[in-house]
C-alpha cells in the first residue's frame, strides 16, 4: 500500500468544489436568511487503484463532498472530472450512464437497504436499471454475494435478517454489481462494532487489490483511515487543511488541526497512551453559517492561542491560508505550518 502511482493521470479530479445550502426563515415566505458554507472550494485528485481518505469531524463537509462529487446533490460551483469528462454539467441521462463506473456505499446499512426487498433483488436492482440483468442474472447475483463473503443461499432473505456487518457487505455487493472503477465509501464502517468493522475493512482491501478499484474513503475515524488509505485529506469546516500520504501525515503532521486530531485519539496501548504528549483544540467547531474570517481554525487553534505573536495572529485573522507546501513536503493550509512528531 505504500506505492503511490504519481505519474498516471487521475481517475477522478475535483477542482474548487463548492456546496452551499440556503438557510430559510420560517413562515410562508421562507425568505433566504443565510448560507451554510458546507464545502468551500476544495480540490483533490484520485489516482487509479488508490485510496484517498477524507477525514474530519461532524460538520466538516466530508459527506457533502462525497455526494456533490457523484452529483447526488448538485454542486454550487466547481468541477469534477472523471476520465476527462466534467460531471457537474452533465444531463441526468448522461450522468446515469457514468454511474456504472462511480458507485457509493452509505454509512447506515439499516437505512440504505430497502427493508421490503430480498437481498437478491437489492443486488440485482442496479443491473436491472442499466439493462444488464440478462438470462445469467441470477448467477451474477449469486457470485456477487459469494464474492463479498455472504452465502448465496441467503439471497431470499430480507435485510432485517442480517447483522450490521452482513448488511454492509450487501451494500458493497450492490455497489460492485455494475463493476465500477471508483467506489465512494461514506463512513462505511462507522455503525459497526470493531470486530465486525475489521471484516468489512479487510474485504474492501481485498476487493481493491483484485479489482483495481479506486476508493474515496470518507470517515471521521483517523485510525481506520490510516489503516486503509494511501493518501489522506483532512477537512475542517468545509476546507481541506492538510493533504499528504498516510506516512507524511502521521510522521509529521504540519497543520495544528491535524495535530490536535491525532492527539485526541486514544491509543489502545496503556503505557504509550499514558505517556503521550497532547495537543488539544479548545472549544467546539463554529457554525458553518458564519465561519470565522481568515483561517477557519484560528478560534480553536492551540498554536494561535499559545505560540503566536500579536502580529502573527493578525495574519491568521485577515488572510485565509492557502493549501500549499511550506517546506514540510506536503501541503498544509496554515500560515505557520510546522511538522511535529506525535508518536
Amino acid at each position, binding site marked *: *500500500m505504500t506505492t503511490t502511482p504519481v505519474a498516471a493521470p487521475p481517475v477522478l479530479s475535483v477542482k474548487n468544489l463548492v456546496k452551499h445550502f440556503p438557510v430559510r426563515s420560517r413562515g410562508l415566505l421562507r425568505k433566504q436568511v443565510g448560507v451554510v458554507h458546507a464545502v468551500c472550494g476544495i480540490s483533490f485528485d484520485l489516482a487509479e487503484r488508490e485510496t484517498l481518505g477524507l477525514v474530519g*469531524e*461532524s460538520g466538516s463537509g466530508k459527506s457533502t463532498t462525497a455526494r456533490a462529487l457523484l452529483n447526488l446533490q448538485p454542486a454550487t460551483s466547481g468541477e469534477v472530472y472523471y476520465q476527462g469528462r466534467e460531471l457537474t454539467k452533465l444531463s441526468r441521462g448522461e450522468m446515469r450512464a457514468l454511474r456504472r463506473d462511480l458507485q457509493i456505499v452509505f454509512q447506515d446499512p439499516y437505512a440504505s437497504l430497502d427493508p421490503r426487498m430480498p437481498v437478491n433483488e437489492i443486488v440485482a436492482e442496479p443491473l436491472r436499471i442499466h439493462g444488464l440483468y440478462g438470462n445469467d442474472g441470477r448467477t*451474477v447475483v449469486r*457470485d*456477487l454475494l*459469494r*464474492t*463479498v*463473503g455472504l452465502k448465496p443461499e441467503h439471497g431470499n432473505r430480507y435485510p432485517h435478517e442480517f*447483522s450490521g456487518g452482513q448488511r454492509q457487505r450487501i451494500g458493497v455487493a450492490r455497489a*460492485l454489481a455494475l*463493476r465500477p472503477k471508483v467506489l465512494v465509501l461514506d463512513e462505511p464502517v462507522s455503525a459497526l*462494532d*470493531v*470486530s*465486525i*468493522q*475489521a*471484516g468489512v*475493512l*479487510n*474485504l474492501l482491501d*481485498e*476487493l481493491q487489490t*483484485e*479489482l483495481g478499484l479506486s476508493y474515496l474513503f470518507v470517515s*471521521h*475515524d*483517523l*485510525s*481506520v483511515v*490510516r*489503516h*486503509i488509505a494511501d493518501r489522506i485529506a483532512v477537512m475542517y469546516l468545509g476546507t481541506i487543511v492538510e493533504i499528504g500520504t*498516510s*506516512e507524511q501525515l*502521521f510522521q509529521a503532521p504540519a497543520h495544528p488541526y491535524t495535530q*490536535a*486530531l*491525532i*492527539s*485526541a*485519539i*486514544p*491509543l*489502545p*496501548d*496503556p*503505557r*504509550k*497512551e*499514558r505517556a503521550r504528549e*497532547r495537543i*488539544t*483544540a*479548545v472549544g*467546539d*467547531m463554529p457554525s458553518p453559517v458564519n465561519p470565522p474570517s481568515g483561517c477557519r481554525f484560528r478560534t*480553536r487553534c492551540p498554536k494561535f492561542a499559545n505560540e503566536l505573536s500579536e502580529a502573527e495572529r493578525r495574519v491568521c485573522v485577515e488572510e485565509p491560508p492557502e493549501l500549499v507546501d511550506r517546506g514540510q513536503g506536503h501541503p498544509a493550509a496554515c500560515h505557520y505550518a510546522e511538522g511535529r512528531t506525535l508518536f
Partner: protein
Amino acid sequence: MTAAEDPLAGPASSPNGAAAPAGDVVLEVSDLTVGFPSDEGLVRAVRGVSYELRSGEVLGIVGESGSGKSVTSLAVMGLLPGNARVSGSVKFRGQELVGASDAAMTKIRGRRVAMIFQDPMTSLNPVYTIGYQIAETLLAHHDGMSKNAALERAAELLEIVRIPNARGRLSSYPHELSGGMRQRVVIAIAMANDPDVIIADEPTTALDVTVQAQIMDALDTARKATGAAMVLITHDLGVIAGQADRVLVMYAGKLVERGSAEDIFYTPRMPYTLGLLGSLPRLDRASARLTPIPGAPPSVVNMPPGCPFTPRCPLAQPVCDEVEPELAPTTSPDHSAACHFSQELVGREAQDLFETTVSDAHALAQFVRETEDQTS
C-alpha cells in the same frame, strides 16, 4: 463518612489520580444476574457478574453492543424497568442495594453514587435551565441549603468542568449548548454532591474526537476533585487504555477476562480479547492485517450450554460446547480469564489464531475474470 456531615467540603481523602493505592472496597457486586422476560423466553442480559471497586481507582468495562455492560451498571443504580429480574448482590460500602427501598436508593443515588450517561440531550431536562438542574441535585440531598447557595455552588461546579463564563451560563437551556458543553454540565451534576462512585456509561461516544479528549479531561478533573472511584463503561479500547487501572471484558452477559490494563492489553488470555485487539486499526503504526472475529455475538435468549464464544473461537474444542468456563487466574492471581485453553494464548498474536482473509477467493477470482471479459 466525613463527607456526609459537610456536604460542600472537599474530598475526604486526597486522591492523586491513577497512582492512588488500592484502597478499601466501595462497591462490591457479586453474582449479579439480570433477565428480561420476552415472548421468545428470558433475555439473559447479565449472567453472574462479580467485581469490586476500590476507592480512588478507575475500573473500565469494555464490550461490544449487547454484551450487557450498560445493563450491569443500570442494575447497580437500581434504574432498570419494573419487568427486569435482578438477583445477586450489590453492596455500596456494605449496604445492600438490590431490593433496597426507593427511599433508601434515593439517598444513595445522585449523592453517593452518581451516573453519567452517553447522550447528554436525554439526561438533561430541556425545559429547565442548567443552573436549576444543578441546584436541584444539590437541594435534593441537603435540607438546609438555600437556593442562592445552591446556585453559587452550581457556578463553581461549572467552572471546575471549564465552562467559559460559568455564571452567565446558569440561565442557559440545554439546547443552547453544544454537545460537549452539555456533557460538561452532566459531569458537573454528577460531581455536585461529592459522590464516592461515579459510573460513566459511554460518556464520550456521541461526541467528536477533539471534544471527546476535552470531556475525558473534564471527567478526570471531576474525579480528582471529588476523590470518587469510577466505573468507566465504553466500547472504545483506546479510552480504556488511557484511563482505566483495571479492566473487565464482557461478552454475552458475562465477564470473560479481568485484570490490570497492562494484563488485558499486553497479555490477553481470552481469545475474544485477543481478537478484539487484533481487529483494531492502529493510529501509531503502519497497517498490519486486521483480524476480524468471524460471526456475530450470540443471542442471549435461550442460550445453549458451553462457552458463548465457541462459534467464533479459533481454539474451540468439543469441551467448549459443553462446559462454560469460569474465570480462573492466569498470568497472576489478579488476572483471570474464562477460557478452557487460555494457556494456548501464551506468546501468540491475533494473526496466529484468526483468519484475516474475508472474501471468498474463488468467487472473487471469477468475478475478476468476468469483469475483464466485459471490458475487453
